[in-house]
């Protein structure tokens, strides 16, 4: 099955995490029967050997590191004491044994937590419980630093794209490189490595007490000694009260829920950035250890400088996005602003005055404002959207004091809201760039050629190539025609046809993205779409009488939705709210027409059945009418769509709707 094939694929991807197994080396092994002399000879002959492992068949029982060995035999009587006796006397039995599947970072934490004198001992790796080899801390540090190098590479790339990248930033990269070089020096301890990485590392378990292993950067960030502090106490000063509650509950849930796969989702609810002592600090979290001994590791990075640059760029980008969105989604804009004014000017007072109860009134208003918030952010009216967020906050406060607050004061709050002023800053961007009358008329607005050139110039200033491409693409589309406008030309024939058939059908409702195409390249497909509209009116939408009888509004509707899929394709869907396509009728007709074999009907999928209507000479209408011909029209649509490299399919719910989905490539 498709399903399980994908599961396997995902599992493979999951397994691509870096496991400690990748770093395993093999070193000579000895047994309890060997004596000190054997080891001495071995170390003398192999001066680069760091150490050896003592095995009992395939179970690791001890470790002898070179330095440790020489230290022990170098003591008074040491040589005589150990040289002829079993190596079990001299070996270190306190081993760090990990499974080869363990994550490298988890293993590093465990290695770091060892006593100072054992810090450089091998990590012993087992596979299915059997000895597999060792990981040398030397190699380990080297690997960690390589990772670091990759991160620096990324940082560097990012910096090159930042507009105002300056000396400071470049110096930062140099510093990082220096640190990296230092990291390659083998005598660095893991702790040192963390300190020099310029990042704060700390960890805690269920009691939230920060453990003793943390890097110096933490002290710099918090400007206090964090040793033994409770994590919540440490950060609560930098949080809002509601955030504190959320974080506390997230941490509680995290330590309680045993399903480790959910950790990532829970961790994503924790703050990703905090303002600490006037610096912006990035917080990354990692859950380490197994379900019983869960620890949370935090990686803190001071990103203040980078952030300031990013913010500047972001503002510019937001403005451009808003302008382009306003140009390409004008109708959505006008509708949303109208709804907004309507609500704050009138509707909200209707709700406030209704007798559904205080609590209901507040939650109804909250819901509407919440929807505005989402819609405005979709329309790139970011400032207005964040104003909605603030109103939400106030309403939430009302809910908290629901008993003491009076309806009059809620009323007063809304009356005093400067809702027009809240939109001002966003609208000003549109007015200043496109023109003060832009949003006044609902019809198309002539965009001057110079303005497009101007916009293109502005966009070129955005140095982020991805964003730049995206915005340029939007501007170029301005020269093309909106699919909605092209299809709106069918409204006349829809009116004529429905009148002829004695049906009531409204003008096409357009929803979704504004997609601009070069009309000529789609000419044939557009021409054949008439068959879909005809089908909708002739076979789909019922007469007013029929509709009223089954509880539908008397007037039938046709909806055209458009969605830009961003990957060089778009989808046009044409949906009518008529009686739908009866699969049974299709089958009967197809059998009658000898298009399918009756015995094979049970083997057909839903899709295969509905797809029959795209075949030549098929018509589901009982009588072949002049308007809808013989149904060959749908076959024509399909063939034109396929010619352009697109696809078409149909979905229908008997009694409710028929919807055609037409996927087409963007032809520039």
């Amino acid at each position, binding site marked *: 099955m498709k399903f399980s094939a994908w*599961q396997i694929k995902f599992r493979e991807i999951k397994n691509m995490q870096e496991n400690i197994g990748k770093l395993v080396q093999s070193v000579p092994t000895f047994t309890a029967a060997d004596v000190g002399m054997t080891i001495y000879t071995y170390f003398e002959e192999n001066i680069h050997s760091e150490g050896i492992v003592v095995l009992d068949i395939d179970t690791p029982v001890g470790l002898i590191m070179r330095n440790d060995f020489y230290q022990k035999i170098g003591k008074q009587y040491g040589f005589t004491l150990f040289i002829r006796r079993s190596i079990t006397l001299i070996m270190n039995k306190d081993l760090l044994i990990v499974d080869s599947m363990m994550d490298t970072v988890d293993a590093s934490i465990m290695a770091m937590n060892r006593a100072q004198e054992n810090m450089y001992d091998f990590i012993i790796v087992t596979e299915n419980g059997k000895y597999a080899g060792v990981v040398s801390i030397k190699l380990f540090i080297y690997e960690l630093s390589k990772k670091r190098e990759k991160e620096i590479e990324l940082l560097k790339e990012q910096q090159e794209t930042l507009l105002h990248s300056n000396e400071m930033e470049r110096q930062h990269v140099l510093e990082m490189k220096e640190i990296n070089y230092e990291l390659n020096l083998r005598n660095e301890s893991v702790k040192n490595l963390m300190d020099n990485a310029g990042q704060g590392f700390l960890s805690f378990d269920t009691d939230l007490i920060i453990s003793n292993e943390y890097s110096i950067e933490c002290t710099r960030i918090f400007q206090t000694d964090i040793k033994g502090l409770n994590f919540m106490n440490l950060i609560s000063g930098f949080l809002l009260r509601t955030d504190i509650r959320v974080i506390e509950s*997230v941490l509680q849930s995290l330590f309680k829920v045993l399903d480790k796969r959910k950790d990532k*989702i829970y961790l994503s609810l924790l703050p990703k950035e905090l303002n600490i002592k006037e610096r912006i600090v990035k917080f990354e979290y990692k859950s380490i250890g197994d379900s019983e001994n869960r620890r949370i590791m935090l990686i803190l990075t001071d990103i203040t400088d980078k952030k300031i640059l990013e913010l500047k760029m972001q503002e510019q980008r937001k403005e451009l996005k808003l302008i382009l969105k306003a140009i390409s989604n004008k109708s959505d804009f006008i509708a949303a602003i109208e709804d907004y004014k309507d609500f704050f000017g009138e509707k909200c007072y209707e709700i406030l005055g209704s007798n559904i109860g205080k609590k209901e009134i507040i939650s109804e208003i909250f*819901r509407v404002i919440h929807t505005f918030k*989402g819609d405005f952010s979709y329309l790139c009216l970011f400032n207005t959207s964040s104003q909605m*967020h603030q109103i939400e906050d106030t309403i939430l406060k009302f809910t908290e004091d629901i008993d003491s607050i009076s309806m009059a004061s809620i009323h007063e709050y809304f009356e005093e809201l400067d809702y027009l002023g809240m939109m001002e800053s966003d609208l000003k961007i549109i007015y200043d760039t496109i023109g003060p009358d832009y949003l006044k008329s609902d019809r198309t607005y002539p965009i001057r050629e110079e303005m497009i050139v101007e916009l293109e110039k502005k966009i070129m200033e955005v140095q982020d190539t991805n964003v730049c491409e995206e915005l340029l693409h939007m501007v170029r589309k301005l020269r093309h025609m909106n699919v909605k406008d092209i299809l709106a030309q069918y409204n006349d024939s829809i009116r004529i046809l429905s009148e002829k058939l004695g049906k009531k059908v409204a003008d096409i409702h357009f929803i979704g993205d504004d997609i601009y195409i070069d009309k000529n390249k789609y000419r044939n497909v557009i021409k054949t779409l008439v068959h879909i509209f005809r089908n909708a009116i002739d076979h789909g939408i019922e007469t007013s009488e029929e509709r009223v009888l089954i509880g539908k509004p008397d007037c039938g509707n046709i909806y055209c939705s458009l*969605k830009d899929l961003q990957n060089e394709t778009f989808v046009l869907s044409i949906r009518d709210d008529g009686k739908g396509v009866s699969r049974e009728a299709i089958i009967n007709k197809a059998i009658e027409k000898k298009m399918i074999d009756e015995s094979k009907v049970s083997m057909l999928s839903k899709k295969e059945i509905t797809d029959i209507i795209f075949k030549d000479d098929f018509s589901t209408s009982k009588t072949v009418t002049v308007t809808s011909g013989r149904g060959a029209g749908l076959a024509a649509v399909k063939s034109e769509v396929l010619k352009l490299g697109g696809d078409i399919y149909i979905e229908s719910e008997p009694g409710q709707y028929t919807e055609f*989905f037409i996927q087409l490539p963007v032809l520039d």
Partner: protein
Amino acid sequence: MGGRIMAKIMIVDDSLLSRISLRMILKGNGHEISCECENGVEACDKYFELRPDIVTMDITMPVMDGIQALKNIIDKDNDARIIMISALGQEEFILEALNNGAVNYITKPFEPEQIIDAINEIFCMAD
């Protein structure tokens, strides 16, 4: 675009704009929309009628909110796979949803990849 996972997905959201956008993203990636609901009550009824593979559930809705609908569905079908759709600043609700059996969450406004990733992750988790 070779072999891809096809899931039957139910969309629950009171915003038309959100529903259309979700529908288009999901269909565009080869998924089937089993139905669209505007509130929690509708969602509960339709869920047990249609048994979709996955539900995307808005949190703030009239009549019955997404959290209550989630609880009602999980109560009768512990294996229901529900992705919460939330707005910024709804962490407390998200947490409540996760603790009550939601598999994941997405914050509005969302990018198509976020939706697709969340759905793929469900298949990834399903062992």
